[in-house]
């Protein structure tokens, strides 16, 4: 029992649409309505990565938006958490075979929570963000979220991300 409230009391969410068909985005905005009311968990939907704790990404990553996604991620102050919302953000979904599609969000930035569904239901999304908030708390206290050991979390860098990003930069 600590006097200071836990870190997961107010996860502020910034939402980034990578290459989505808008289905997941509409469902995510539905979470803010009186029926689901995200704010009762202290979750705020902010428009600025510099204010945010949780990055919610919808849609698959392609050559064009990989740099943008990385840029948004880099602007968030630590500790931060990434939630891949829907199957497209998780693996590429039905767009995975597209010539321009790189795959899921984890090809470019480290993902903490994957939420399945096409589109994911609002209940699943709220659950995903709250799970992300728990990971946030674990990261803040220096534990790995799964093993509960006192190991400092190292931010993993996907092996192929630099190549992808350089490629994206050369396109522009």
């Amino acid at each position: 029992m600590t006097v200071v409230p836990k870190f997961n009391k107010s996860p502020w969410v910034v939402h980034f649409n990578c290459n989505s068909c808008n289905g997941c985005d509409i469902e995510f905005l539905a979470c803010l309505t009186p029926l689901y009311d995200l704010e009762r968990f202290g979750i705020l939907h902010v428009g600025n990565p510099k204010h945010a704790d949780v990055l919610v990404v919808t849609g698959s990553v392609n050559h064009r938006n990989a740099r943008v996604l990385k840029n948004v991620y880099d602007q968030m102050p630590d500790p931060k958490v990434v939630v891949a919302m829907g199957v497209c953000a998780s693996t590429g979904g039905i767009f995975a075979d597209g010539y321009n599609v790189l795959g899921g969000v984890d090809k470019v930035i480290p993902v903490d929570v994957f939420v399945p569904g096409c589109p994911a239901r609002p209940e699943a999304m709220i659950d995903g963000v709250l799970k992300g908030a728990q990971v946030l708390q674990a990261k803040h206290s220096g534990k790995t979220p799964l093993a509960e050991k006192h190991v400092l979390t190292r931010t993993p860098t996907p092996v192929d991300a630099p190549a992808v990003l350089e490629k994206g930069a050369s396109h522009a």
Partner: protein
Amino acid sequence: MTIPTTPLTLVLAILVAPFFGALLSGIDRRITARAQGRMGPPILQPVYDTIKLLRKEPILLNRMQIVYAYLHLLFMIMAFLMLVFGKDSLMFLFVFAFSTLALVLGGMCVRSPYSRIGSQREIMLMVAYEPILILIMIGFYMVNNHSFLLSAPLSAARPMLISLPLLFVAFLVVLAIKLHKSPFDIATSHHAHQEIVKGITIEYSGPHLAILEIAHFYEMALLFCLIVLFWASPIWIGLLLASASFFLMTVVDNAFARLTKMWIFKFMWTSVLLLAMTNVILLYWVSK
């Protein structure tokens, strides 16, 4: 009756004010949620938010930005203490105005266009409400036997609201501007997080954003105390009046859409200024 300036009361005022402001903000968020048919966050949510922000990684664009954030907080605390301990009202106004000015300069010293637009709008708001605040202080001066001291209303024979009803209405409009409430929340807003209106805070993150939040909590406590002055004896009526005013602000916030900056400017310099001037001129006639 004045509050004595001892180290104990000083520390108490500095410590209690931000919690009071946070509580007001939490109640405001809960009432807003209930008005929209939602559950709403816990009452202490602003406290959780601020503590979380304080523990995040500090990112700054340049040092001056942070200096201005601290100046904003420092001058806000100073203005609050000057009000609580009944110091000179004109000096209080200058310190209060400089606090907001520091916020504007902080928004101006980065290269983000959104931050600059927010700052420019804040300047427009200051131009709109500062004359009203000065007229209110002139009203205080005329009612309290030509004394500029903010402690004078506490020992006044009859409540100031009776002599300054129009100035009080004008002050309610200023209150809505200072609390960033609709229809005046063009520089920064509590609700529209995605819009350009989040402008002035856009380049602050983590603990520096928390500094701005804490300063706003002080500002809320300051405005609450300023309303209490309108009915300072017995003080419980003043507290009721202030609570009712804050509730009214929440209702207005939920009922109105946002205005453009020129509309706000015209409204303040015609209708509201006219109200305030009428009250001051009437007071002058009565005293002749």
